[in-house]
């Protein structure tokens, strides 16, 4: 899948339309970005690990997975033991194997990256082990004896799932409450389709919940169906992992024209649909510089858009998307424009072009669709005290409200990564446990 395949019914006609590609092309474009290793490939990849002392990859992992150990367990033909090493630190190790920006985490730290520019493929090895174990069907962890304590976990995204699992493992009863119709949070609604194929996010949640002791309830939202106060009266503690449900807008002329969409909604809709049914413009402009912007731009291209421009207001060095993601976009044929400040959306009745100020020039880029990916923000609901748009936390997720913890993207200290959210959820669970069992 080096370049998107095109050539079908609605092809390159203008406007926003579905079915631009052949069924085969959709299948190829939205296949696994990094296909899984077969057993021999895994063996060869695992053999490359040096089993470093005090390994830099472990230090680089936000969940501190013992990477040399799990790789050694693959070498010795015990992938399920390997998966347990991974999952004991990071219960969403399967998803993280798929979506972690390993090129800026463990694999960047790998000594073989330093030595030869070719790190051990830690992410794919992690996927090999976790897939192997999850295929066996059984859940590898058991609950401790019931403590009689009950905790409400608000948000079934990476932070909430990790928190709920760890609390259940320690013997607590958990009510897992989520506003969306399905659990998973950004794993289910926010990640590019080609990064987690085949319904993996739901399968992983289902597998995770098999530990028992977690009552999942979907379609219930904080501030609408319950409040922190009502939860605190019913539960011994509350963990808030609601993510950043709001998105930032852009206040320029023409921004209300039809054809201007939110990139987060676009990505979520694509994840929940057959790609062939998702309408896309012929000329698409994406405004933003983060992972969401890249995911939206790349997927617009994969859906059959002819021209996709990713416009970022600052210089390349400030883009939040990793270099790897930027290269991925370029390789897929996305045109990346740096130092482009949007000033207006033009069009009679619907989007026709987007105008940018660039150093020394004003450029007008034809567009029939504009996707905005300029940052997500905390939904102002009844939350513990916030600062700078995030819930203030101290140490392992303690908010300023007694008996309330928080973690993931909604809390301070995160970096908008799945793996960091998992670490925060897990660590908050440990702290809740210590606090409740004191």
């Amino acid at each position: 899948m080096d370049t998107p395949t095109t050539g079908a019914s609605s092809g390159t006609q203008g406007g926003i339309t579905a079915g631009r590609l052949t069924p085969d092309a959709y299948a190829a474009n939205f296949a696994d970005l990094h296909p899984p290793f077969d057993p021999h490939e895994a063996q060869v990849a695992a053999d490359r690990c040096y089993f470093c002392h005090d390994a830099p990859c472990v230090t680089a992992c936000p969940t501190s997975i013992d990477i040399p150990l799990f790789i050694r367990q693959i070498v010795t033909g015990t992938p399920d033991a390997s998966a347990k090493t991974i999952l004991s630190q990071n219960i969403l190790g399967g998803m993280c194997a798929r979506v972690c920006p390993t090129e800026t985490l463990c694999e960047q730290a790998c000594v073989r990256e330093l030595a030869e520019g070719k790190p051990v493929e830690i992410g794919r090895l992690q996927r090999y082990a976790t897939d192997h174990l999850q295929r066996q069907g059984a859940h590898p962890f058991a609950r401790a004896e019931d403590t009689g304590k009950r905790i409400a976990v608000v948000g079934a995204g990476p932070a909430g799932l990790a928190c709920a699992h760890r609390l259940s493992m320690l013997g607590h009863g958990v009510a897992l409450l989520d506003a969306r119709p399905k659990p998973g949070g950004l794993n289910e609604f926010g990640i590019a389709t080609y990064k987690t194929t085949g319904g993996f996010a739901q399968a992983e949640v289902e597998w995770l919940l098999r530990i028992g002791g977690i009552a999942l309830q979907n379609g219930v939202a904080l501030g609408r169906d319950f409040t922190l106060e009502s939860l605190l009266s019913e539960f011994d503690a509350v963990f808030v992992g609601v993510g950043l449900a709001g998105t930032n807008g852009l206040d320029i002329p023409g921004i209300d024209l039809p054809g201007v969409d939110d990139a987060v909604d676009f990505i979520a809709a694509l994840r929940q649909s057959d790609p062939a049914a998702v309408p896309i413009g012929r000329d698409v402009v994406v405004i933003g510089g983060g992972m969401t912007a890249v995911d939206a731009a790349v997927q617009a291209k994969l859906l059959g858009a002819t021209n996709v421009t990713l416009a970022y207001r600052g210089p390349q060095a400030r883009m939040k998307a990793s270099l790897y993601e930027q290269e991925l976009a370029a390789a897929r044929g996305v045109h990346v424009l740096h130092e482009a400040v949007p000033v207006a959306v033009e069009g009679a009745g619907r989007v026709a072009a987007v105008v940018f100020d660039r150093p020394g020039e004003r450029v007008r880029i034809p567009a029939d669709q504009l996707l905005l990916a300029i940052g997500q923000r905390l939904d102002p609901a009844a939350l513990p005290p916030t600062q700078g748009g995030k819930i203030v936390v101290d140490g392992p997720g303690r908010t300023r409200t007694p008996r309330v913890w928080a973690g993931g993207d909604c809390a301070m200290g995160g970096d908008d990564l799945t793996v960091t959210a998992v670490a925060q959820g897990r660590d908050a669970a440990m702290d809740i446990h210590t606090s409740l069992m004191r």
Partner: protein
Amino acid sequence: MANLASTFAGIRSPNPFWLASAPPTDKEYNVRRAFEAGWGGVVWKTLGLDPHIVNVNGPRYGAIWGADRRLLGLNNIELITDRPLQVNLDEIVSVKRDYPDRAVVVSLMVPCEEEPWKFILPRVEATGADGVELNFGCPHGMSERGMGSAVGQVPEYIEMVTRWVKANTRMPVIVKLTPNITDIRKPAAAAKAGGADAVSLINTINSITSVDLDLFAPEPTIDGRGAHGGYCGPAVKPIALNMVAEIARNPDLRGLPISGIGGITTWRDAAEFMALGAGNVQVCTAAMTYGFRIVQEMISGLSEYLDERGMALADLTGRAVPNVCDWKDLNLNAVSKAFIHQDLCIKCGRCYAACEDTSHQAIAMLPGRVFEVKDDECVACNLCVNVCPVEDCITMERMAEGDVDPRTGRVVSFKHADWTTHPNNPGAVAAE
């Protein structure tokens, strides 16, 4: 291009690379392919008396592997040729006629009585073969019938059979030795006493490569059971090199030609065997792993090596033998320290783990994952060099004369001093 023409025990070949007696030399078809690929000679797979033996109908080989399934050691339970004697003899005639410049030596194994040898030797001689190799090495199957290593483990038998063979043929006689003994010099001396023109070694080593942990049976497994086999391949090379050197440096065996065998895979392996005293080399596992074409690399590599040094092939044989000595003769005054070249270090820390956990706590781990040798603790054991994944990243640097060894506080002297004169040695002789 160096002249690689070789004469070993009076047998000429265009290069010193022979295929050892084994499956690759089992029949005319293979041997022709080998000669077309460029091998200088073959030792035809061992002939025996009719009725010919039979082989198992299950796996004959077991193996161990390194990274990426690189084959490191191979074990086999195949016996000698399982084809009628006359078929082999006819094929040898045909091959030798078409490749007169190549060495064709015939490996033999018959019962330990003179009559069978008297029977088979003239028939082999009639094929035009250049020599015979006596298989006193095979450790499996045939040894249960009093042949192979069962003979090679008793020096008196070696001498007796060698004498019979010499008395019954004009062909050069090479005696192939088994490594499954305690002192390789004894069977070599017996072969020499019996009149052997050369020895070849090593044959394979008794081995079980692995155990099937579901069947609880050794590998290779046949119908749930396994027998020990003969081990060969790169893993056995260090054992073979030592045995070759032990013969080469023994004054009583001096001048006895040695055909070196054991894990030879590249020109460098071959050159090492020759430097330790081998006149030529025999190869099997490498050919079985990669095919006959590997000889082309052996020829080009050895040729380049000799050309670069202006050496003739004959200059190589035995060149390292004078430097093989006993432990007691090693210079205790030669003091080295490990040195980590920071520009090559990839900061894996394996040297640190090895030294800290299992050796002398002589490597410091400094901030930023900088690893440095503590000269006041380093005994120059070389373990860090061996476990480092980067070649030449850690080197052993010899201390200069007059420097003070920070570990012992002693001034380094370049004067040789070994155990024989060391004060801690109760049997020391006074230093001169």
